[in-house]
């Protein structure tokens, strides 16, 4: 409303700051725009400010500075119960003294909805999460996964346009978590609701989201769709935080035709794609290569590509993949992953090999 940039954004953070103690900022200058219907995940280590952002959006924390807008209207001074935002909590927060149906009825009752309307909506919401037969039970009689579904149904039953989820799958076991990840995304997309999802689990973020905002130190480090985030991290933090990653340190020798030639500290030369602004000739840099993009079969490397000498330290058989630990340029934690294919070579510890990669897979980031 205030400016043209916010017209098509459904949720908008503008220059938002938050401090609890008046000395340090937990959230530093947050700017974020979300179109309607988007599934956005806030990902970051604990203490990175992601949950604080969610709580500010829900209205349980007030922004120290800046503006938070919902559908163009500033909500800074609107109390949480008037925001109409659905929320799923980490431990579900199902009211233990009410049955499942009563739990779902609660948001409808406070909206003064008639009995028959309520019942119809409760039934629809419970059916939606396949919990139609459980209306009469108490939360303590349900398993974790079932409680999770009910919490989801309760957050959706009053048909909010925005739903917030605060690490909702944290308490579930791995299999159930994967199943629920799929169900939640499916539900969010089919209902067309805008979702803000907070997690510290990067797999969850990658598999569920339209876009992921990676938080660290109170700032969004990168806001991008999952594939971009994984394949094209913009700084070393994102590269380290998302997926497994090999790093090598060195100095930029020259930049030519969109390629940076980096001299590693032990003298080896490699070609990289310069990503970070700080990557200039003569500057220190940290290069990042995904383990599955490392190649040691010479035939598959480009003509004239730079290679590095490596010594195999450990070979781990993991079923679908092989995981091999190497010593490369003094780094003993250099990992490569190879698919378990019939013609795949199984490296042995002690073996000396040469490794290389495509320059576009090797990204020169901030030191």
């Amino acid at each position: 409303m205030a400016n043209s940039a916010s017209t098509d954004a459904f949720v908008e953070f503008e220059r938002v700051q938050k401090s609890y103690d008046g000395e340090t900022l937990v959230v530093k200058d947050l700017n974020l725009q979300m179109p309607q219907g988007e599934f956005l995940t806030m990902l970051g280590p604990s203490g990175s400010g992601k949950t604080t952002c969610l709580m500010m959006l829900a209205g349980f924390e007030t922004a120290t500075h800046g503006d938070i807008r919902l559908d163009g209207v500033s909500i800074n001074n609107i109390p949480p119960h008037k925001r109409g935002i659905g929320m799923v909590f980490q431990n579900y927060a199902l009211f233990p003294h009410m049955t499942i149906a009563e739990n779902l009825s609660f948001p409808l009752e406070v909206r003064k909805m008639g009995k028959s309307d309520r019942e119809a909506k409760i039934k629809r919401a419970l059916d939606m999460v396949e919990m139609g037969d459980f209306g009469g039970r108490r939360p303590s009689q349900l398993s974790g996964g079932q409680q999770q579904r009910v919490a989801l149904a309760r957050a959706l039953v009053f048909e909010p346009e925005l739903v917030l989820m605060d690490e909702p799958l944290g308490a579930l076991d791995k299999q159930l978590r994967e199943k629920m990840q799929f169900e939640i995304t499916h539900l969010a997309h089919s209902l067309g609701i805008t979702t803000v999802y907070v997690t510290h689990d990067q797999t969850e973020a990658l598999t569920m989201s339209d876009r992921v905002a990676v938080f660290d130190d109170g700032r969004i480090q990168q806001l991008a769709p999952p594939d971009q985030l994984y394949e094209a991290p913009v700084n070393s933090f994102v590269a380290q935080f998302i997926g497994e990653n090999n790093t090598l340190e060195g100095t930029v020798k020259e930049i030519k035709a969109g390629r940076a030639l980096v001299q590693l500290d032990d003298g080896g030369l490699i070609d990289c794609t310069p990503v970070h602004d700080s990557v200039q000739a003569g500057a220190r840099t940290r290069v990042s290569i995904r383990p599955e993009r490392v190649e040691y079969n010479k035939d598959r490397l480009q003509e004239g590509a730079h290679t590095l000498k490596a010594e195999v330290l450990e070979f781990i058989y993991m079923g679908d993949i092989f995981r091999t630990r190497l010593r490369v340029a003094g780094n003993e934690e250099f990992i490569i992953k190879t698919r378990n294919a019939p013609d795949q070579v199984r490296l042995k510890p002690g073996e000396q090999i040469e490794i290389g990669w495509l320059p576009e897979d090797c990204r020169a980031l901030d030191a």
Partner: protein
Amino acid sequence: MSDTTDTGPVLAADGTPLKRSLARALRMQKLRALMLIAPLLLFVLLTFILPIVDMLFRSVENQIVSETLPKTVVELQEWDASSGEAPGEAVFAALAADMKIAVEAKTHTRLGSRLNYEKTGLSSLFRKSGRKVKRWDLAEDAPFKQKFIDIDEDWGDVDVWRTLQTYSPAFTNGYFLNSIDMQKGVDGPEARPENQQIYITLFGRTLFMSLVITASCILLGYPVAWILANLPSRTANLLMILVLLPFWTSLLVRTSAWKVMLQQQGVINDVLVWLGLVADDSRLVMINNQFGTIVAMTHILLPFMILPMYSVMQTIAPTYLRAAKSLGATNWTAFWRVYFPQSVPGIGAGSILVFILAIGYYITPEIVGGTKGVFISNRIAYHISSSLNWGLAAALGTILLAVVLLLYWAYDKIVGIDNVKLG
């Protein structure tokens, strides 16, 4: 073990039935547990439960009459109280024989005191007669009827003999009737004269004031418990010490402090007069009445309300309130529909604790209660230590115990006892 389903009991590896095997294995455990609690069990049994049972038994026991005057009691069975005349010579002869023995053993004064509870004047009658009967010769001094009436004309009074007859059985409901402001009349139980009725009022007052005290404790304690439960634990622990502080001073000191505060020349009245809110000649009467008892007892029992409430509230996660608000509830609705119901077990536990403590409270009403603010327990104490009417004290105590058990049962029916949590 598929074969055991149709061949009867499951067998252990050595062929004995599994149930017996298990029982044997558990027996040692049970025995050890019993040994561990045995000293305490014995101690409680000897020093607490047996005296209580003995005390309760006194509320119906009445063997003193038939033991002291065995022959008289037998002879008196024939006598018809409605005849309007004192019994005949046979009864008096039996009385003389019984008294002779009783005087030797000096038990006649005790009987006198006992019967004095039922009819005043009997104590002195027996003491007086005892002195005379001592000098009589049973064989030569007959007939005794006139002799007894000569000692005191009360012996010719039909009422005296009716009292003796009424209380000659070994067990009596007299104490209980007395406890509910009734007495044994000619035609069974009847109400006492209005100026002698006291216990029903006292029971009612005790129950009512205990309820008021419990309610005030809830009203004052709930916000405190809430604050404590919602503060960071460091601060909460500090404030908790303030809640527990009263436990560090003697009960008597605290009660006396209230006396200083509340009396007409006390701190509160002085301040009110100084502020000009109350005229010097119309100082408020806040002590030696129900108000004083309620104020002092609420203060003393408050920690018993706060502690269970606090420990229950601590277990209520703050996310419930947030969840309720995110679902559209106002602060009040969120509290009333989500937080409060979850804190009810704490209120229940606190209320039972405070109410049961209050209903039997003695020291505080004794000091600040005056005449209008005393409890039934003060009356019981009076009968135990001053009037020595232990039978009546026992009957009053039994009724009090029954009332508490009844209320406990009612609470279980209405709220459910598993709905009580101490944390």
